[in-house]
């Protein structure tokens, strides 16, 4: 800290006359005695953009995320906002799960609403498109549901932070479990079915590549792709059944996952083959509680029941149940972490200035519902785990969860690869 010399003190004192001194002292006294909430109201509003779908294929997952963001923001605003003096104003836009809509709405809230950060999106295709805009406008993009590895890899932007496990981490995690199952069950042939867009292609590619290394005897028989939001998967399922693979890997998320599961059951898919490694998050576990086949192996991104000892997770569960009368989902859990993570970044920076917050988040260690987690400096990926488990009826919950005795929590460090890999082919940005 710089010291103020006596000469400087003299200068300062000389510049303040008696009248000015009295006025200043009185003003300082008033400020000191003013209740905290009054001083907070004087702070600049923090405009927070939220780009998530309430229509289209992603609406089912995004719904609980939007609710969690609102709950967390209300909680922080109850304390006066960020730093106790910057009330948060949410600017929500529906992306319709479409990249063109996401970029249009993203541009709109940046230019018209002057948002400092955007939480979202659902679709990785939307997130990648939005990155071009947020990077150029120097606005923070806080991703969680959209989790293509490209977001922190080839399309990296220093303004983007990823709060969920990315596709590479997830496919590497599931492939380890599947390789064990394939070895145990002597599986030789498999089919992949995926949503035909950035995320689906990415996670399928990662899975196939890694399984070829861990289980070279297991051969990919066929890959099938359907458009996002396809409501009739009958022809795909009957085709898979006619090929009789040993197992099927679904690169399917959101409501399409439910469609695949329910139509698959009605067509007898599970009588012919095994469905392994699909995304069975707490959204599916709650919504399909009556129909989800028990024993199915799935993966999850933010399973609240894996962190019941974490004080922050306990807080999330309580807040969400109080507000919604339900348990939080993976999507709400991740987006609680996003909002409180942003708050911690702002606290570290001591200001809401976007550049300062961006720099404060770089390599930052955050308290999250999933424990204490750190952003990797080379790609802004939070070191969060992926959860793999068997669908299981737990008497403590009104819906099935993963069997906690057998659940595998794959830590980020085991699956996220090296920084060199993350940086390979990275887009050059100004």
């Amino acid at each position, binding site marked *: 800290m710089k010291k103020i010399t006596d000469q400087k003190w003299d200068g300062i004192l000389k510049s303040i006359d008696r009248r000015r001194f009295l006025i200043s002292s009185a003003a300082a006294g008033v400020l000191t005695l003013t209740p905290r909430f009054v001083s907070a109201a004087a702070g600049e509003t923090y405009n927070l953009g939220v780009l998530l779908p*309430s*229509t*289209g*294929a992603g*609406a*089912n997952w995004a*719904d609980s995320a939007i609710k969690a963001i609102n709950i967390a923001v209300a909680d922080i605003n109850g304390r006066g906002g960020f730093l106790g003096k910057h009330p948060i104003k949410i600017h929500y836009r529906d992306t*319709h799960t479409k990249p063109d809509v996401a970029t249009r709405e993203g541009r709109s809230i940046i230019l018209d609403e002057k948002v400092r950060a955007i939480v979202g999106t659902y679709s990785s295709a939307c997130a990648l498109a939005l990155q071009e805009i947020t990077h150029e406008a120097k606005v923070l993009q806080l991703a969680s549901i959209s989790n293509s590895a490209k977001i922190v890899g080839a399309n990296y932007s220093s303004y983007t932070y990823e709060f969920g496990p990315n596709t590479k981490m997830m496919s590497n995690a599931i492939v380890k479990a599947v390789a064990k199952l394939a070895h145990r069950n002597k599986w030789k042939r498999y089919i992949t079915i995926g949503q035909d867009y950035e995320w689906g292609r990415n996670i399928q590619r990662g899975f196939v590549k890694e399984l070829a290394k861990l289980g070279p005897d297991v051969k990919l028989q*066929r*890959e*099938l*792709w*359907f*458009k996002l*939001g396809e*409501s*009739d998967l*009958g*022809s*795909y*399922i*009957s*085709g898979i*059944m*006619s*090929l009789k693979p040993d197992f099927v890997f679904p690169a399917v998320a959101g*409501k399409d996952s*439910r*469609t695949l599961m*329910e*139509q698959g*059951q*009605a*067509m*007898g898919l599970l*009588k*012919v083959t095994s469905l392994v490694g699909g995304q069975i998050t707490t959204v599916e576990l709650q919504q399909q509680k*009556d*129909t989800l086949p028990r024993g199915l192996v799935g993966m999850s991104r933010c399973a609240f029941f894996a962190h019941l000892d974490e004080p922050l997770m306990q807080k999330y569960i309580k807040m969400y149940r109080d507000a919604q009368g339900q348990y939080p989902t993976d999507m709400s859990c991740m987006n609680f972490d996003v909002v409180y993570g942003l708050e911690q970044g702002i606290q570290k920076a001591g200001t809401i200035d976007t550049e300062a917050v961006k720099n404060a988040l770089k390599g930052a260690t955050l308290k999250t519902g999933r424990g204490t987690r750190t952003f990797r400096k080379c790609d802004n990926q939070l070191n969060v785990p992926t959860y793999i488990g068997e669908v299981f009826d737990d008497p403590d919950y009104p819906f099935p969860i993963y069997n906690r005795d057998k659940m595998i929590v794959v830590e980020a460090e085991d699956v996220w690869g090296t920084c060199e890999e993350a940086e390979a082919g990275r887009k050059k940005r100004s």
Partner: protein
Amino acid sequence: MELGFDFIFPQLMAGMSRGMLLFLVAAGLSLIFGVMNILNFAHATFWLLGGYITYSVLTLFGPTAGISPLLVIPATLVAIAVLVLIGFAIERTLVQKMYDRDVPEQLLLTFALVLIIGDVIKLIWGVEDRSVFLGLPPVELFGQFVNLYYFVIIGVGITVFAGLHLFLHKTSFGRIVRAAVHSREMVEALGIRISTIYMVVFGIGVGLAGLAGGVVLPLTPLALGADIDLIIQCFVVVVVGGFGSIIGTFVAALLIGVTYSFAIFLWPDGALAVIFLIVIAILIVRPWGLFGTELRT
């Protein structure tokens, strides 16, 4: 890949089911255009609304997972009744004013209905997907597992086709409707109120969409935005079959459904392209569709 019976039979069943779903929605679209010359872009949105109404009625009986298939019948009948009334009301208040307008204006009006009804659905039912899970076990047929509900969809599709055909050709009201297709002025000159004919036809068309929404609900989930995807496929069916031709719509729906079912497996990346190649070929070679007449080009 071996194209044996193991492959062909299940794909055919799935394709026929898909085709019947398309027919059930496109039949009303084709009927309304054939008789009234109104291109109803909101037709699949009425289908969606019918599905949501059916869903709500089903929830009155208890949880929608594992519900009895028989309960789908009264729930669908309620949806049809509500949709027919909505159809009457919309025809009287809005569509009636569009008869002498150009097609782009009709499309704009009906597209506005898509947005308005979509928002109404959002307000009443929220954004969550809705689905009904019957829990019917698959049936084993010729050594293959088949979704039992496929037979219901195919059966309803054939019944609706036969019913519409009989209605248009064997009843006096149907004959008047067909006459109105060719000469509105002549029908009016005979002292028949053409506006009543139009209102009834629009109501029937929208009611068919309601029927489709209810019947299909146990097979496919309801989601906001699903109507936009479906209406495009329905336009494809109607273009291929011929606007206003029920038999054309039926044949084209089966053709599109079955072709798509095989194409997604034989040429996964080009399945949609195959469908639109058929449309292009029809538009070039036979612009009035497989069963349409040149009068309607």
